[in-house]
């Protein structure tokens, strides 16, 4: 077991972890971050997407021990973020979810898309969502939701987390 200390959703978290523990498993167990969904555990489906030191990352293919000292945000910690709030409203308005399993990863990824592209085209949104699999919606509602959020967000730069 190896001691690590990181900041998860604004709170300092110290723990001893087995070196093979993935960041996703660690966050789910130690930080009760059940929004971190596991759809493939090999870095393809995007359901476990979180924010590590300001960049989105797949928590299923990172090891917790390698993230000692990192600052991490999962959807649990983003309740007060106005971009996530708008995205949630837009996903609801545009029927951007069905079973809800891919949804946390979609929201975190979508926030990053809007940060990089404040007024994205549909093609940009689709390309940027290529790493997030949804098996229910056929993506139409998700793409519409991201575009809807872009239109309805207040002007101004979106800060990284």
């Amino acid at each position, binding site marked *: 077991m190896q001691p690590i200390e990181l900041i998860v959703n604004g709170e300092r978290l110290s723990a001893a972890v087995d070196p093979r523990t993935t960041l996703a498993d660690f966050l789910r167990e130690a930080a009760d971050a059940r*929004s971190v969904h596991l759809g493939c555990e090999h870095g393809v*489906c995007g359901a476990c997407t979180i924010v590590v030191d300001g960049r989105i990352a797949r928590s299923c293919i990172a090891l917790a021990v390698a993230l000692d000292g990192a600052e991490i945000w999962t959807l649990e910690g983003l309740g007060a973020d106005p971009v996530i709030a708008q995205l949630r409203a837009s996903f*609801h308005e545009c*029927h951007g*979810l069905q*079973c*809800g399993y891919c949804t946390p990863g979609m929201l975190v990824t979508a926030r990053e898309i809007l940060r990089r592209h404040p007024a994205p085209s549909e093609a940009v949104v689709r390309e940027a969502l290529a790493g997030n699999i949804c*098996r229910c919606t056929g993506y139409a509602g998700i*793409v519409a939701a991201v575009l809807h959020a872009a239109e309805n967000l207040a002007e101004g730069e979106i800060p990284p987390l």
Partner: protein
Amino acid sequence: MAVATAPDRKGIGGSIRRIEDARLLSGRSTFIADIGRPGIWEVAFLRSPVAHANLVHLEKPAGAEDRVFFLADLGAILPIRADSQAPGFRRSDYPAIADGKVRFVGEPIAICLGRTRGEAEDLAQAVLVDYDELPAVADIAQSRNPDLPPIHPGWSENVFLESRVDVGDVDAARAAAALSLTRRYRMNRQAIVSLEGRGVVTYRDERTGELVVYSSTQFPHVIRTALAECLGMKERELRVVAPEVGGSFGVKNNLNPEELALAALTRRTGKALRWVEDRREHLIASAHAREHRYEVTVHADGEGRVLGLEATIEVDAGAYSVWPWTAPMEAGMAIGFLPGPYAITSYRATALTCASNKSPLGPYRGVGRPGACFAIERTMDEIAAALGLDPVEVRLRNYVRPDQFPWKSAGGKTYDIGDYGASARAARDMIRPERVAALRQEHAGSDWRIGIGYATYLEQTAHGTAEWVQRGLPVVFGYEQAEIHMTADGMLVMDVPIQNHGQGLETTLAQVAHDELGIDPAQVVVRHGDTSLAPYGMGTFASRSMVMSGGAVGRACEALAAKIRKIGAHLLQVTEENVRLKDGEVVAAGGASVPLAEIAMAAYLHPERLPDTVEPGLSVIASYRTARDTGAWSYGTHAVLVAVDTGTGLVEILDYAIAHDCGTIVNPMIVDGQMMGGLAQGIGTALYEEMPYSEDGQPLASTFMDYLVPGAPEVPRARIEHLSIPSPITRYGIKGMGEGGAIPPPAAICNAVNDALRPLGAAIDETPLTPDRIIRALMAPQAGEAGA
């Protein structure tokens, strides 16, 4: 997506936003992996690495005897036995854990426990197994090879069932035909891929005396019945709960060996257990789908009217018959649906359900019909091409006409109502075939070839007793129940045994309640997926829940409304005939009103306010079945415009249009969502998804790097038109529609690709239409000659 609906409508017909969204958008709802118990053990299954072998020796790792379990350690337990009632069916017993023999790669051999999944997997690696390997049956052709060993004891050949249809006079059709064509089609094997895998949590509830089984399943009550039988327990000793379910599409609609294994082990040891399927397990060991082969001969007159149809259908159903569907379901659906929307009266076909050393075949969105639709719709295009006719025109000449309903099909089905031609004309109008010539001109001289394709589908939905009896299953899914009650403060709680795994049923059932009770959908709570909450019911599959559960909820609400009106009229001091339910109140003709909350308070807390003839309480249980139980038939036509890159073999979808009829639409937004989701899966079948096996029965796709699921760039937004002819046999005229979107895309896209390649003399009749297959089709000798 053009949706004609009054935006303020909350009841049937309104695109209200979903009630279930908030908890899912929070990310905090409870899926199977989120359920824990103090002291819970994580489960890893040791799974067979070989396709076919006798297990000659099994040995637990030293010191881990209490954490590794074989079949003999599970106590009295019956195998899963999914017997078809069809004469000639060969039985397969599917054990929870291998019983001395393994029959496919991925079959469970041992249950291993650890404090983490990693520890449990370590243990699985340390179990010693001696395999005496047997030759594997890895292909349909091999299932009839007498030199290969029988997969199950006592079998004379590796075939579950052979069935036949012979109606009308095919020989006369052949003699009279101006055109007879024979074509071969293949729809290859797929995984199903819910984004959340399967999973099971089991523990003992000492207070209630129940063995509690949480399972990511589509039908908890039916699972309880099956588990009770296999475990020799009383149903009351079992509670089955489906928590939030992260997609299903059929793969969570079987009694799985893992459910049985965990339940048996908890019963035996008292340990709380959790198994969460990983992606590799899902791809190799969850039920698979499709794998159909067809040889179709069609006889037509000079105008393209079909006079007779002949077919040989072969399906590779894998190693076991899955409960409750049975192995022959897939081929049985294919043979029953092959005549499709066409008025074909002479039909002769054989359907062979082969067994192999592969993962068992189970239901997947569309069940049997994507293959049957592929075969008949490709054939309609072949008739059109051979006669130089427009493919839509050939279809219009052959559809069952609106004045011919109810239509008894040559496949033995009874279609309720429809206007198939209207869907084809609408789809053609949307896709605008007149622009193809200009597009071809534009791309002349490049590698890009433009093609247009159509496919019409039928989707039998909400079929009841007659249909399931005809299919010979162990369970007859003939009805649905609902139990509703109003709380003392006037909210409506509906307990239903169906299961919501993305379909938005909590919203649409609340819309039904709104129409019956005038209650705001926001005041309605739908609870599902728990045998301890809801009365017995069949679950969510076969596009049945909106019709069946909607019908049950409607009937229950109707009865509750009568009681509420009685109480309301009494409180308002008017006669019952002079009140109605509106906007959460009972309203008298003169305008005086009393809110539901006040009526509920009287019903529960102030019986002195009730009329003498009314019993206290506001609860109703109701059952529903359709007026005729042969199914409500949705249908539609898909039209697609593609570009095929003859250099790389890539297919690009340029435009996609859908015209469909699912009867009365409860929520157009949700219907469009279901249609788009089905389309995405249909595109997967058509272009990307395949579960190939090696000659010795090794699955060759075990990650998302080699099993390709469509992403956002691959799925265009389709334009959808709703025709909406109400079903005459269901309450509200609703027809189910959960599967239709997935049925015709392989046919429509393959027709479009063939339309694009036809000038080059190339043809392709196998899904998925991978670049590799398209290039090989282009290199086939006849393509070279025609192209030269």
